[in-house]
Protein backbone atom coordinates (compact mmCIF):
# COMPACT_ATOMS: atom_id res chain seq x y z
CA UNK A 1 0.00 0.00 0.00
CA UNK A 2 1.28 3.46 -0.88
CA UNK A 3 1.71 6.04 1.85
CA UNK A 4 -0.64 8.33 -0.09
CA UNK A 5 -3.41 5.79 0.39
CA UNK A 6 -3.05 6.16 4.12
CA UNK A 7 -2.88 9.95 4.35
CA UNK A 8 -6.59 10.64 3.92
CA UNK A 9 -9.01 12.65 6.04
CA UNK A 10 -11.03 9.56 6.92
CA UNK A 11 -7.94 7.91 8.40
CA UNK A 12 -7.07 10.85 10.58
CA UNK A 13 -6.78 9.86 14.24
CA UNK A 14 -4.95 12.86 15.64
CA UNK A 15 -4.05 16.31 14.42
CA UNK A 16 -2.36 19.35 15.79
CA UNK A 17 -4.69 21.54 17.80
CA UNK A 18 -6.00 24.08 15.34
CA UNK A 19 -5.63 27.12 17.55
CA UNK A 20 -2.10 26.33 18.68
CA UNK A 21 0.31 28.34 16.56
CA UNK A 22 3.46 26.96 14.95
CA UNK A 23 5.70 28.91 17.33
CA UNK A 24 7.88 26.43 19.23
CA UNK A 25 6.99 26.64 22.92
CA UNK A 26 9.76 27.89 25.19
CA UNK A 27 8.55 25.82 28.13
CA UNK A 28 10.94 23.30 29.63
CA UNK A 29 10.21 19.73 28.56
CA UNK A 30 7.74 18.21 31.03
CA UNK A 31 6.28 21.53 32.16
CA UNK A 32 2.52 21.63 32.77
CA UNK A 33 2.02 24.98 31.06
CA UNK A 34 2.03 23.47 27.56
CA UNK A 35 -0.65 20.90 28.40
CA UNK A 36 -2.98 23.52 29.84
CA UNK A 37 -2.44 25.73 26.78
CA UNK A 38 -3.53 22.83 24.63
CA UNK A 39 -6.69 22.27 26.67
CA UNK A 40 -7.61 25.93 26.33
CA UNK A 41 -6.84 26.04 22.62
CA UNK A 42 -8.95 22.93 21.99
CA UNK A 43 -11.91 24.23 23.95
CA UNK A 44 -11.87 27.70 22.41
CA UNK A 45 -11.92 26.00 19.02
CA UNK A 46 -14.53 23.36 19.89
CA UNK A 47 -16.83 25.92 21.51
CA UNK A 48 -16.44 28.28 18.55
CA UNK A 49 -15.06 31.13 20.66
CA UNK A 50 -11.99 32.23 18.72
CA UNK A 51 -13.49 35.56 17.66
CA UNK A 52 -15.01 36.23 21.10
CA UNK A 53 -11.95 35.39 23.18
CA UNK A 54 -9.62 37.88 24.77
CA UNK A 55 -6.88 36.32 26.88
CA UNK A 56 -4.88 38.11 29.53
CA UNK A 57 -1.31 36.82 29.89
CA UNK A 58 0.52 37.03 33.21
CA UNK A 59 4.08 37.83 34.15
CA UNK A 60 5.62 34.44 34.77
CA UNK A 61 6.70 31.62 32.49
CA UNK A 62 3.34 31.91 30.68
CA UNK A 63 4.14 35.49 29.73
CA UNK A 64 4.48 34.30 26.14
CA UNK A 65 1.13 32.48 26.09
CA UNK A 66 0.16 35.05 23.49
CA UNK A 67 2.62 33.47 21.09
CA UNK A 68 0.98 30.06 21.29
CA UNK A 69 -2.80 30.37 21.17
CA UNK A 70 -4.19 32.06 18.10
CA UNK A 71 -6.61 34.53 19.67
CA UNK A 72 -6.37 38.16 20.77
CA UNK A 73 -4.35 38.69 23.91
CA UNK A 74 -3.31 41.40 26.31
CA UNK A 75 -0.22 41.33 28.46
CA UNK A 76 -0.80 42.56 32.01
CA UNK A 77 1.62 43.84 34.63
CA UNK A 78 2.73 41.27 37.23
CA UNK A 79 -0.33 40.22 39.23
CA UNK A 80 -2.78 42.67 37.65
CA UNK A 81 -4.42 40.35 35.12
CA UNK A 82 -7.77 40.18 37.00
CA UNK A 83 -8.04 43.98 36.97
CA UNK A 84 -7.15 44.09 33.28
CA UNK A 85 -9.73 41.38 32.61
CA UNK A 86 -12.31 43.35 34.58
CA UNK A 87 -11.70 46.33 32.33
CA UNK A 88 -12.08 44.24 29.18
CA UNK A 89 -15.12 42.36 30.33
CA UNK A 90 -17.01 45.36 31.72
CA UNK A 91 -16.90 47.24 28.45
CA UNK A 92 -17.24 44.10 26.31
CA UNK A 93 -19.85 42.05 28.15
CA UNK A 94 -20.18 39.58 25.29
CA UNK A 95 -16.51 38.75 25.04
CA UNK A 96 -15.10 35.57 26.54
CA UNK A 97 -12.40 36.95 28.81
CA UNK A 98 -9.94 34.85 30.75
CA UNK A 99 -6.76 35.29 32.75
CA UNK A 100 -3.98 32.74 32.86
CA UNK A 101 -1.81 33.21 35.94
CA UNK A 102 0.94 31.54 37.94
CA UNK A 103 0.99 31.22 41.71
CA UNK A 104 3.43 34.08 42.19
CA UNK A 105 1.39 36.29 39.92
CA UNK A 106 -1.99 35.37 41.38
CA UNK A 107 -1.38 34.52 45.02
CA UNK A 108 1.50 36.85 45.87
CA UNK A 109 1.79 40.18 44.11
CA UNK A 110 -1.72 39.97 42.65
CA UNK A 111 -3.56 38.68 45.73
CA UNK A 112 -5.63 41.85 46.03
CA UNK A 113 -6.71 41.96 42.38
CA UNK A 114 -7.80 38.31 42.25
CA UNK A 115 -9.77 38.59 45.49
CA UNK A 116 -11.64 41.66 44.34
CA UNK A 117 -12.33 40.45 40.81
CA UNK A 118 -13.74 37.23 42.26
CA UNK A 119 -15.64 39.10 44.92
CA UNK A 120 -17.25 41.32 42.29
CA UNK A 121 -18.14 38.17 40.40
CA UNK A 122 -16.62 39.35 37.15
CA UNK A 123 -17.71 37.19 34.25
CA UNK A 124 -14.26 35.85 33.57
CA UNK A 125 -12.43 32.57 33.68
CA UNK A 126 -9.29 32.35 35.78
CA UNK A 127 -6.78 29.62 35.02
CA UNK A 128 -4.40 29.33 37.96
CA UNK A 129 -1.18 27.36 37.44
CA UNK A 130 0.04 26.36 40.88
CA UNK A 131 3.55 24.94 40.57
CA UNK A 132 4.64 25.99 44.05
CA UNK A 133 7.45 28.17 42.79
CA UNK A 134 8.47 31.19 40.71
CA UNK A 135 9.51 29.41 37.53
CA UNK A 136 10.36 32.36 35.37
CA UNK A 137 12.73 34.19 37.70
CA UNK A 138 14.78 31.14 38.56
CA UNK A 139 12.91 29.18 41.20
CA UNK A 140 12.25 31.42 44.20
CA UNK A 141 9.65 30.73 46.89
CA UNK A 142 6.00 31.30 46.02
CA UNK A 143 3.16 31.64 48.57
CA UNK A 144 2.21 28.08 47.58
CA UNK A 145 5.68 26.59 48.18
CA UNK A 146 5.30 23.63 50.52
CA UNK A 147 6.81 23.57 53.98
CA UNK A 148 10.40 22.33 53.80
CA UNK A 149 10.59 22.79 50.04
CA UNK A 150 13.95 24.05 48.78
CA UNK A 151 13.88 27.09 46.50
CA UNK A 152 16.36 29.80 45.58
CA UNK A 153 15.10 32.00 48.43
CA UNK A 154 14.53 29.13 50.86
CA UNK A 155 17.83 27.28 50.34
CA UNK A 156 17.29 25.30 53.53
CA UNK A 157 13.65 24.62 52.85
CA UNK A 158 10.59 26.77 53.54
CA UNK A 159 10.46 27.52 57.21
CA UNK A 160 6.97 28.53 58.24
CA UNK A 161 8.29 30.61 61.15
CA UNK A 162 10.22 32.75 58.68
CA UNK A 163 8.10 32.55 55.56
CA UNK A 164 4.58 31.75 56.69
CA UNK A 165 2.43 28.86 55.52
CA UNK A 166 1.73 27.48 52.05
CA UNK A 167 -1.38 29.30 50.91
CA UNK A 168 -4.46 27.46 49.66
CA UNK A 169 -5.78 30.52 47.93
CA UNK A 170 -8.35 28.62 45.91
CA UNK A 171 -10.12 27.68 49.14
CA UNK A 172 -10.34 31.37 49.99
CA UNK A 173 -11.63 32.18 46.52
CA UNK A 174 -14.35 29.57 46.93
CA UNK A 175 -15.64 31.49 49.94
CA UNK A 176 -16.33 34.58 47.88
CA UNK A 177 -19.95 34.95 46.77
CA UNK A 178 -18.88 36.30 43.37
CA UNK A 179 -17.48 32.96 42.24
CA UNK A 180 -19.63 30.33 40.59
CA UNK A 181 -17.42 27.36 39.81
CA UNK A 182 -14.19 26.75 41.71
CA UNK A 183 -12.19 23.61 41.16
CA UNK A 184 -8.72 22.14 41.52
CA UNK A 185 -7.35 19.88 38.79
CA UNK A 186 -4.08 18.42 37.56
CA UNK A 187 -2.70 17.43 34.14
CA UNK A 188 0.01 14.94 35.01
CA UNK A 189 -1.90 11.88 33.81
CA UNK A 190 -4.08 11.23 30.77
CA UNK A 191 -7.09 10.88 33.08
CA UNK A 192 -6.19 14.13 34.77
CA UNK A 193 -5.99 15.93 31.43
CA UNK A 194 -9.46 14.67 30.48
CA UNK A 195 -10.94 15.72 33.82
CA UNK A 196 -9.23 19.07 33.66
CA UNK A 197 -10.56 19.68 30.17
CA UNK A 198 -14.06 18.86 31.34
CA UNK A 199 -13.69 21.30 34.22
CA UNK A 200 -12.38 24.10 32.02
CA UNK A 201 -15.22 23.50 29.59
CA UNK A 202 -17.77 23.86 32.35
CA UNK A 203 -15.98 26.96 33.61
CA UNK A 204 -16.09 28.55 30.17
CA UNK A 205 -19.78 27.73 29.82
CA UNK A 206 -20.42 29.40 33.18
CA UNK A 207 -18.72 32.55 31.95
CA UNK A 208 -20.78 32.50 28.76
CA UNK A 209 -23.89 32.03 30.89
CA UNK A 210 -22.80 35.00 33.03
CA UNK A 211 -22.88 33.02 36.25
CA UNK A 212 -19.92 34.87 37.80
CA UNK A 213 -16.24 34.13 38.09
CA UNK A 214 -15.05 30.63 37.31
CA UNK A 215 -11.74 29.58 38.77
CA UNK A 216 -9.73 26.52 37.75
CA UNK A 217 -6.56 25.79 39.69
CA UNK A 218 -4.20 23.33 38.02
CA UNK A 219 -1.68 21.79 40.39
CA UNK A 220 1.37 21.78 38.15
CA UNK A 221 4.99 20.79 37.87
CA UNK A 222 8.02 23.00 37.37
CA UNK A 223 10.76 20.46 36.79
CA UNK A 224 13.37 23.18 36.23
CA UNK A 225 12.54 24.99 39.44
CA UNK A 226 12.14 21.79 41.42
CA UNK A 227 15.38 20.46 39.90
CA UNK A 228 13.77 17.09 39.11
CA UNK A 229 13.29 15.20 35.87
CA UNK A 230 9.79 15.45 34.34
CA UNK A 231 8.90 11.95 35.50
CA UNK A 232 10.28 12.51 39.00
CA UNK A 233 8.38 15.82 39.11
CA UNK A 234 5.08 14.11 38.42
CA UNK A 235 5.79 11.62 41.18
CA UNK A 236 6.89 14.35 43.60
CA UNK A 237 3.76 16.31 42.81
CA UNK A 238 1.54 13.33 43.43
CA UNK A 239 3.22 12.54 46.74
CA UNK A 240 3.60 16.08 48.07
CA UNK A 241 1.55 18.70 46.28
CA UNK A 242 -1.71 16.85 45.82
CA UNK A 243 -2.08 15.80 49.48
CA UNK A 244 -1.78 19.48 50.44
CA UNK A 245 -3.78 20.73 47.46
CA UNK A 246 -6.39 17.99 47.06
CA UNK A 247 -8.08 17.75 43.66
CA UNK A 248 -11.78 18.21 43.04
CA UNK A 249 -14.57 20.77 42.83
CA UNK A 250 -14.80 23.23 45.72
CA UNK A 251 -17.88 25.06 44.61
CA UNK A 252 -20.48 24.74 41.89
CA UNK A 253 -23.17 27.38 41.98
CA UNK A 254 -24.19 30.74 40.57
CA UNK A 255 -22.78 34.00 41.86
CA UNK A 256 -24.54 35.34 44.92
CA UNK A 257 -26.13 31.97 45.64
CA UNK A 258 -25.16 29.99 48.66
CA UNK A 259 -23.22 26.90 47.72
CA UNK A 260 -23.32 23.52 49.40
CA UNK A 261 -19.60 23.14 50.01
Amino acid at each position, binding site marked *: MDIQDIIKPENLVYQKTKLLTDTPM*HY*CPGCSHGVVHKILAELIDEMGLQDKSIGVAPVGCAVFAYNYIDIDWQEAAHGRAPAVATGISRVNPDAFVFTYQGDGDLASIGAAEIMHACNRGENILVIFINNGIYG*MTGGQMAPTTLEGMVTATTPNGRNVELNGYPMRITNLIAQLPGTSYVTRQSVHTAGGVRKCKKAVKKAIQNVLDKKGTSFVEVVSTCN*SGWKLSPVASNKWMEENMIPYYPLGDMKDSVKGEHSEN
Partner: protein
Amino acid sequence: MTEEMIIAGFGGQGVLSMGKILAYSGIMEDKEVTWFPSYGPEMRGGTANVTVIVSDTRISSPVLQEYDTAIILNQQSMDKFEKAVKPGGVLLYDPNGIVNPPTRTDINIFKVEATKASVEMGNPKVFNMIVFGSYLKVRPILSLDNVEKGLAKSLPERYHKLIPLNLDAMQKGREIVEEVNVV
Protein backbone atom coordinates in the same frame (compact mmCIF):
# COMPACT_ATOMS: atom_id res chain seq x y z
CA MET B 1 49.31 41.77 29.84
CA THR B 2 45.65 41.83 28.99
CA GLU B 3 43.72 38.76 27.86
CA GLU B 4 40.26 39.47 26.51
CA MET B 5 38.35 36.29 25.89
CA ILE B 6 34.98 34.70 25.38
CA ILE B 7 33.90 31.18 26.29
CA ALA B 8 30.74 30.16 24.46
CA GLY B 9 28.68 27.01 24.27
CA PHE B 10 25.49 25.44 25.61
CA GLY B 11 24.11 26.00 29.09
CA GLY B 12 25.23 23.01 31.15
CA GLN B 13 28.66 22.64 29.53
CA GLY B 14 30.32 24.40 32.43
CA VAL B 15 31.08 27.51 30.42
CA LEU B 16 30.35 29.93 33.24
CA SER B 17 32.27 27.96 35.84
CA MET B 18 35.30 27.61 33.58
CA GLY B 19 35.31 31.37 33.28
CA LYS B 20 34.99 31.71 37.02
CA ILE B 21 37.97 29.46 37.70
CA LEU B 22 40.01 31.44 35.20
CA ALA B 23 38.99 34.72 36.83
CA TYR B 24 39.79 33.42 40.32
CA SER B 25 43.17 32.18 39.11
CA GLY B 26 43.83 35.66 37.77
CA ILE B 27 43.09 37.12 41.19
CA MET B 28 45.54 34.65 42.74
CA GLU B 29 48.14 36.11 40.40
CA ASP B 30 47.20 39.64 41.51
CA LYS B 31 45.55 40.57 38.23
CA GLU B 32 42.43 42.60 37.62
CA VAL B 33 39.56 40.47 36.33
CA THR B 34 36.00 40.76 35.05
CA TRP B 35 33.56 37.96 34.31
CA PHE B 36 30.48 38.98 32.39
CA PRO B 37 27.87 36.32 31.56
CA SER B 38 24.95 36.16 29.21
CA TYR B 39 22.00 35.97 31.55
CA GLY B 40 18.28 35.34 31.68
CA PRO B 41 15.97 32.96 29.86
CA GLU B 42 18.37 32.73 26.91
CA MET B 43 20.28 30.35 29.18
CA ARG B 44 17.32 27.99 29.52
CA GLY B 45 18.54 25.10 27.39
CA GLY B 46 20.04 27.54 24.95
CA THR B 47 23.42 29.13 24.50
CA ALA B 48 25.52 30.46 27.34
CA ASN B 49 28.60 32.58 27.09
CA VAL B 50 30.89 34.52 29.34
CA THR B 51 33.39 37.25 28.63
CA VAL B 52 36.47 37.08 30.84
CA ILE B 53 39.13 39.76 30.97
CA VAL B 54 42.39 39.27 32.88
CA SER B 55 44.72 42.23 32.99
CA ASP B 56 47.61 43.86 34.81
CA THR B 57 45.80 47.18 34.74
CA ARG B 58 42.34 48.53 35.54
CA ILE B 59 39.79 47.01 33.17
CA SER B 60 37.61 49.40 31.21
CA SER B 61 34.67 47.95 29.27
CA PRO B 62 33.47 44.54 30.48
CA VAL B 63 31.76 43.97 27.12
CA LEU B 64 33.84 43.45 24.02
CA GLN B 65 33.41 43.20 20.27
CA GLU B 66 36.63 41.34 19.58
CA TYR B 67 38.66 38.90 21.55
CA ASP B 68 42.24 37.74 21.94
CA THR B 69 40.90 34.26 22.54
CA ALA B 70 37.60 32.53 21.82
CA ILE B 71 36.81 29.12 23.28
CA ILE B 72 33.97 27.77 21.21
CA LEU B 73 31.92 24.74 22.20
CA ASN B 74 28.96 24.63 19.81
CA GLN B 75 28.06 25.55 16.26
CA GLN B 76 25.90 28.58 17.11
CA SER B 77 28.82 30.07 18.99
CA MET B 78 31.18 29.27 16.13
CA ASP B 79 28.89 31.13 13.75
CA LYS B 80 28.80 34.10 16.09
CA PHE B 81 32.33 34.35 17.44
CA GLU B 82 34.80 32.98 14.85
CA LYS B 83 34.71 36.35 13.15
CA ALA B 84 35.21 38.17 16.44
CA VAL B 85 38.71 36.83 17.11
CA LYS B 86 41.37 39.52 16.66
CA PRO B 87 43.80 38.81 13.80
CA GLY B 88 46.63 36.82 15.33
CA GLY B 89 44.38 35.73 18.18
CA VAL B 90 43.44 32.24 19.31
CA LEU B 91 40.38 30.13 18.56
CA LEU B 92 40.11 26.91 20.55
CA TYR B 93 37.23 24.55 19.85
CA ASP B 94 35.87 21.10 20.48
CA PRO B 95 34.96 19.52 17.13
CA ASN B 96 32.09 17.57 18.72
CA GLY B 97 28.90 18.86 17.12
CA ILE B 98 30.72 21.35 14.92
CA VAL B 99 29.43 21.04 11.36
CA ASN B 100 31.30 23.99 9.91
CA PRO B 101 34.82 24.11 11.35
CA PRO B 102 36.62 27.45 11.45
CA THR B 103 38.13 28.62 8.17
CA ARG B 104 40.04 31.77 9.03
CA THR B 105 43.71 31.77 8.14
CA ASP B 106 44.78 34.89 10.05
CA ILE B 107 44.26 33.43 13.51
CA ASN B 108 45.69 30.55 15.52
CA ILE B 109 43.27 27.66 15.62
CA PHE B 110 43.45 24.73 18.01
CA LYS B 111 41.10 21.88 18.62
CA VAL B 112 40.57 19.68 21.63
CA GLU B 113 38.48 16.52 21.61
CA ALA B 114 37.25 17.24 25.10
CA THR B 115 33.79 15.65 24.82
CA LYS B 116 35.35 12.41 23.68
CA ALA B 117 38.09 12.53 26.31
CA SER B 118 35.61 13.24 29.11
CA VAL B 119 33.59 10.19 28.11
CA GLU B 120 36.79 8.15 28.05
CA MET B 121 37.61 9.45 31.52
CA GLY B 122 34.19 8.18 32.54
CA ASN B 123 33.01 11.57 33.75
CA PRO B 124 31.34 14.02 31.35
CA LYS B 125 31.43 16.65 34.11
CA VAL B 126 35.17 17.21 33.70
CA PHE B 127 34.59 18.29 30.10
CA ASN B 128 35.12 21.98 30.86
CA MET B 129 38.31 21.30 32.79
CA ILE B 130 39.78 19.41 29.86
CA VAL B 131 39.05 22.42 27.68
CA PHE B 132 40.49 24.71 30.33
CA GLY B 133 43.70 22.67 30.49
CA SER B 134 44.14 22.85 26.75
CA TYR B 135 43.52 26.59 26.84
CA LEU B 136 46.30 27.11 29.38
CA LYS B 137 48.60 25.05 27.19
CA VAL B 138 48.07 27.31 24.19
CA ARG B 139 47.73 30.52 26.22
CA PRO B 140 49.98 30.11 29.27
CA ILE B 141 48.89 33.42 30.81
CA LEU B 142 48.75 32.14 34.38
CA SER B 143 50.98 29.87 36.42
CA LEU B 144 49.54 26.42 37.10
CA ASP B 145 50.14 27.00 40.78
CA ASN B 146 47.77 29.91 40.81
CA VAL B 147 45.27 28.04 38.70
CA GLU B 148 45.21 25.32 41.33
CA LYS B 149 44.61 27.96 43.98
CA GLY B 150 41.91 29.56 41.83
CA LEU B 151 40.22 26.20 41.48
CA ALA B 152 40.20 25.71 45.23
CA LYS B 153 38.77 29.21 45.71
CA SER B 154 35.96 28.79 43.21
CA LEU B 155 34.82 25.39 44.47
CA PRO B 156 32.83 25.19 47.68
CA GLU B 157 34.73 23.40 50.46
CA ARG B 158 32.62 20.24 50.14
CA TYR B 159 33.83 19.72 46.56
CA HIS B 160 37.52 20.07 47.37
CA LYS B 161 37.96 16.30 47.21
CA LEU B 162 37.31 16.70 43.47
CA ILE B 163 40.32 18.94 42.90
CA PRO B 164 42.72 16.11 41.92
CA LEU B 165 40.19 14.84 39.38
CA ASN B 166 39.95 18.34 37.90
CA LEU B 167 43.72 18.67 37.74
CA ASP B 168 43.92 15.32 35.94
CA ALA B 169 41.35 16.55 33.45
CA MET B 170 43.38 19.70 32.86
CA GLN B 171 46.47 17.60 32.30
CA LYS B 172 44.50 15.52 29.79
CA GLY B 173 43.57 18.71 27.96
CA ARG B 174 47.19 19.83 27.80
CA GLU B 175 48.09 16.50 26.23
CA ILE B 176 45.39 16.19 23.60
CA VAL B 177 45.12 19.74 22.26
CA GLU B 178 46.01 19.84 18.55
CA GLU B 179 47.23 22.60 16.30
CA VAL B 180 44.99 23.29 13.30
CA ASN B 181 46.35 26.55 12.01
CA VAL B 182 49.20 28.65 13.31
CA VAL B 183 50.08 32.08 12.01
